């Protein structure tokens, strides 16, 4: 009897782990749809703010260059362009008044949103599945392996086709909720929008980061480096 019980528990544990890994792989497959190691993509985006009734409050233009897990985003804030670079070494900011890029923390805020929520999270290298904390089949707990991101844990689950990432602190208290919605851009299934809700100062208001279009462009990978931000900026489309 004990043997059977042990076998059942072992099978269940293996199934849960396999199921967790399969959820994680499925998520990463969509998340990395446009993260190529041999191509750079240029995306046009919108950053919308909604009030607690879901009414659009503001709309901000944004665009970005993506190469692997490196990303440079341009956000037009009050008529001025701000550039944010995310690489394995951290986050950097540049504008026309700063002659040298400044290194910033992932918690640097623009329009009440932290940069680490807007720029790509390197789920593959900066987080791993926390096997010590058993979650159900459609929920997994990810543990930080790199201090670049300020979130210690991420609880990831899938519900009604949506991927929900709860960003947690070291005590596993919920700080933010990011909801990834799948969509098709140029025939490729990817996360076409991300909703960001602050769970600490919860007012019901939320932001939505929407990718409108995506295209492949030729940009050298070595440009994704803070020293070459000025060179990388010239690959952003000029505004009319």
């Amino acid at each position: 009897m004990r043997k059977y019980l042990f076998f059942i528990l072992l099978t269940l544990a293996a199934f849960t782990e396999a199921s967790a890994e399969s959820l994680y792989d499925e998520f990463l497959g969509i998340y990395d749809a446009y993260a190529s190691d041999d191509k750079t993509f240029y995306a046009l985006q919108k950053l919308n703010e909604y009030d607690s009734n879901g009414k659009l409050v503001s709309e901000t233009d944004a665009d970005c260059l993506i190469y692997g897990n490196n990303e440079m985003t341009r956000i037009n804030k009050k008529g001025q362009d701000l550039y944010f670079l995310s690489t394995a070494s951290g986050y950097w900011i540049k504008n026309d008044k700063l002659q040298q890029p400044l290194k910033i923390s992932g918690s640097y805020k623009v329009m009440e949103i932290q940069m680490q929520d807007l720029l790509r999270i390197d789920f593959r290298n900066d987080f791993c599945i926390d096997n010590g904390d058993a979650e159900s089949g459609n929920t997994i707990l990810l543990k930080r392996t790199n201090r670049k991101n300020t979130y210690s844990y991420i609880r990831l689950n899938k519900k009604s086709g949506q991927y929900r990432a709860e960003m947690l602190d070291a005590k596993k208290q919920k700080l933010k909720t990011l909801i990834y919605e799948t969509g098709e851009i140029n025939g490729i299934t990817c996360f076409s929008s991300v909703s960001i809700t602050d769970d600490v100062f919860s007012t019901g208001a939320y932001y939505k980061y929407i990718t409108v279009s995506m295209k492949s462009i030729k940009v050298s990978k070595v440009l994704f480096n803070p020293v070459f931000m000025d060179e990388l900026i010239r690959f952003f489309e000029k505004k009319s």
Partner: protein
Amino acid sequence: MKKSIFYGIIFLFASINVNALSFGFMTEADFIKLKPQPYTPDYTADVSTHLYFSQDLNIRNYLLTAKLGIVITNSKIKFQFVEFKNTILFNFAGITFGKYNVYWGKSIIKNDFFLNIPVTDVIDKNLWNIKADFVFDNLTVTAGSVLDTESIDDFAKPDWASCYTLFNFSCPAFTAGWEADCLFAAGKENEIKTAVEFLFTKISNVSVYADASLKVPPGTTISNNIDWSGVVGTSWYFDNKYVPATFIAEFCGYNNAAGFGLLVIPEIDTKFGYSLKMEYIQDNKMIVTNTVTMNAGTCKIYFEYQSANLLEKDKYNQLLSTGVKYEF
């Protein structure tokens, strides 16, 4: 003849890549540019117009920006590079050479973290320069040389060259930099300058910065005669999502061999910018500078009025300047 052949080859090269070719026009006019000479009203009207074609190239790890054209400055017409920037990139380093904007520094008030070269309007000027950047995670090291641009544009031997090195360390809490440069000018002794700069950015919406520099004039030693200066300042950024502008309040104090000064600068920063600079200088001097800038696309208009010493009822040393810059 040499010049014609040189530019002819460049033009031919540019014409081959017609797809990447675009034309541009830029004019910059200082309608009134008063000089600070007591009791002598003086003005200049400098107009500089650039008509150029430009080309951007990106071949693997090589980047090129070339703007070649006609430059008309005060009735003189020259055919020259308006901008010419070549960058070769490696994994942890980059080499850049050509004629382009060279400027570092953060402080907007009295920045000592700049190149000591015999050109006054360094911020907007394109200069012939060669440099190498090395990247070590949070640290970047730059070494290079700026050359006498006016002479090179005329295919003449440069009268001066400045060699510089810059170490810049940046982390989320602060940015720190050290730079040193040496000016080699024909017929003059070499001049060395060094400066450090700290910028603290950890506190939300507040920047605290400090600069210090030492300049060793020719023929002197550090122990007996140095020109030194230091500046400490702080900026507060007020942002409101309902108002399309950023409000900046800057407080700064500086001290140098000539004395000390205190500045207060409230500033509105948007498409229409306004700043009021109130500067108290040692020996009872108070000077107020009003600056208005308007940005509409690539057109920039500015007006600047600097008062005379308000504490001595001096009405003669007022300065007014105005200008426009347009590019398409």
